[in-house]
C-alpha cells in the first residue's frame, strides 16, 4: 500500500527531505540551545525566531513501540513495528517511526537504533533499524 505522505511547507520540509542528503534534520533553537519537534517557525520554549534545521546523528533508542497486527487497509503487510524513537542528542527529542529489518517480536524499549531513509515521491521517510 502506498504510504500517506505529508504536505510539505516551509516549516516541515527539512525534516521530510533531509534524507535526500542522508541527513536527519531536527529543528534547533540557538537561543536556548535545544532541539524541538515538530518543527515550527518559533521555539516553543523561549519563543525565539532564531531557529533552523540542524543535522543530528540519526542514532537513538526505542522509547516505546507497538506491533500492528490489524489490516486497517489492504496490502498493509502486517505485522510491522511502529515506534517512538528518542534521539541521542537530547532527552525527550523523539518522533513516531517504523523499525524495520528485524523479527517484530525482537523489538524492545531501550533498543539502540539508527536512521535509514526511504524515499517515497519527494519525501525521505526517516525509518530506523537496529544498531
Amino acid at each position: 500500500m502506498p504510504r500517506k505522505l505529508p504536505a510539505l511547507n516551509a516549516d516541515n520540509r527539512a525534516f521530510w527531505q533531509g534524507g535526500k542528503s542522508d541527513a536527519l534534520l531536527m529543528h534547533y533553537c540557538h537561543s536556548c540551545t535545544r532541539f524541538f519537534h515538530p518543527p515550527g517557525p518559533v521555539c516553543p520554549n523561549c519563543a525565539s525566531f532564531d531557529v533552523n534545521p540542524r543535522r543530528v546523528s540519526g542514532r537513538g533508542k526505542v522509547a516505546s513501540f507497538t506491533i500492528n497486527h490489524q489490516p486497517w487497509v489492504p496490502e498493509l503487510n502486517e505485522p510491522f513495528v511502529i515506534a517512538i524513537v528518542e534521539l541521542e542528542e537530547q532527552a525527550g527529542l523523539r518522533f513516531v517511526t517504523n523499525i524495520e529489518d528485524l523479527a517484530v517480536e525482537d523489538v524492545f524499549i531501550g533498543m539502540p537504533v539508527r536512521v535509514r531513509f526511504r524515499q517515497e515521491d519527494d519525501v525521505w521517510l526517516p525509518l530506523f533499524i537496529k544498531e
Partner: protein
Amino acid sequence: MLDRVYEKDVAITGIGQSEIARPSQLSGMRLTVDACLEAIADAGLKRSDIDGIACWPGDNNNGNSFSPVGPNALQNALGLQVNWFGGGYEGPGPLAGIINGAMAIASGLCRNVLVFRTITESTARQSNKEASALSNKTQGRDSSFAWQWYTPFNVLSASNLIAMYAQRHFHDYGTTPEQLAQIALNARRNAQVNPKAIYRTPMTMDDYMQSRMISSPLRMFDCDVHCDASTAIVLSRKDVARDAPNPPIRIEAIGSALNQPWSWDQISLTEGAAFDAGKMMWSRTDLKPSDVGAAQLYDGFSILTMIWLEALNLCPKGESGSFVEGGHRIARDGPLPINTNGGQLSGGRTHGLGYVHEACLQLWGKAGDRQIAEHQVAVTAAGGGPLGGSLLLVKD
C-alpha cells in the same frame, strides 16, 4: 487561590439518550433529536427554554460518522432560538461540550444549555470497513497539524498510538495483560445488566487473552465497540436548576488543563493530558478522591481507564495495575465502581457523554438492575493522549 470557580454556578438537570445500535436504521439527526428531546423533558423544560447549544466536536463542516450532527444542524432541526452555540474538535476532549456549555451559563450568556454528542460509526463501517483509518481523514497529502507525523509511518488508527502508551506503562510499572484485562472484564460484567449495551454475553479471562491482537499489547477487547447513538445533557444555571424535577447535579469542579504539547507523541506517554486535567480539577474543590462514590472513566481503550485512575488520584501513579487486580475494587459492589453501564468497551462507543449520562443515572438512583450503592459524588473523565477533560459531579 482562585477567586471564582465558575462551574459551581452550573448543574445538570436532565439527560437523554437515543437507542444504541450496531447499526441503527435511524439517521444521525433522528438519533440526536431523540436524545435531546428526552433530555429537555427530563429537565422539566420546553424547547423554548433552551437558549444555548454546545457540542464536541461538532460536524466539522463535513458531517462524517465520527460526528455527523453539530450545533448548527441541531439548532435548525429543533427550531431552537439561542443566545450562544458552539462546537469544534479543539478543546479538552469529549467532555468539552459540557465544559463550554457551563462557561456559557456562568458568563451570563445562557440559562439552559443543551449539550449533545452523536456518532454513527457503526453505519459508516457497514459500507466501508476502512472508514476508521486515519489515512481517510484527509484527501491526498496530509496537511493536518497532528496526523502528518504519524500516517506516513502507517499509523492508521489511534490504537497504534495508545498501544505505545500501554507498552510504556507495562515497561515502567510492570503492568500486566491480566491486569489490563480487568478493565474489559469489569465492563462486560456491567454490560450484562444494561439492556442497551452492545456486548452482553459473559466474557472470561480466557476469552480476553485469546482475542486477537490489534496493536500490541492491545487486544480486540481492549478497544471499544463502534455503535450509532446520541447522548444529550441539559445544563442549567444554579438558581434555575432548583425548580427542576430531578435533584440538581452540581458541577463541583472541572479539569480542562493542558500543560504539555498538544501531540500524541511529544506528550508524556504514561500521563497524557489526563494528569493535567486531574490536577486542575482537584485544585478547584475541597472534596478529595476518597469522597468519590463512582467513576465513569474513558475506555475507548482499556489502558486509558488505567491512566485516568492514576490521573484523578483514585490510585497512586503507576499502581493502577495492582489497583484493578482481580477486579473487586472496581466492581459494582466494590469501593470504587467504574464504568457501571459497560463503558464503551461493551456498552458502545457513545464517545464521552455516555459517561456523564451514566454518572447521573447512578446519582439519581435510576440505573435499574445495575444500580450501585447510594452516593453523592461521582467523577467522569474522557479522552486519551492530548485530549483530556474531567468533571466532578455532586448531588446534594
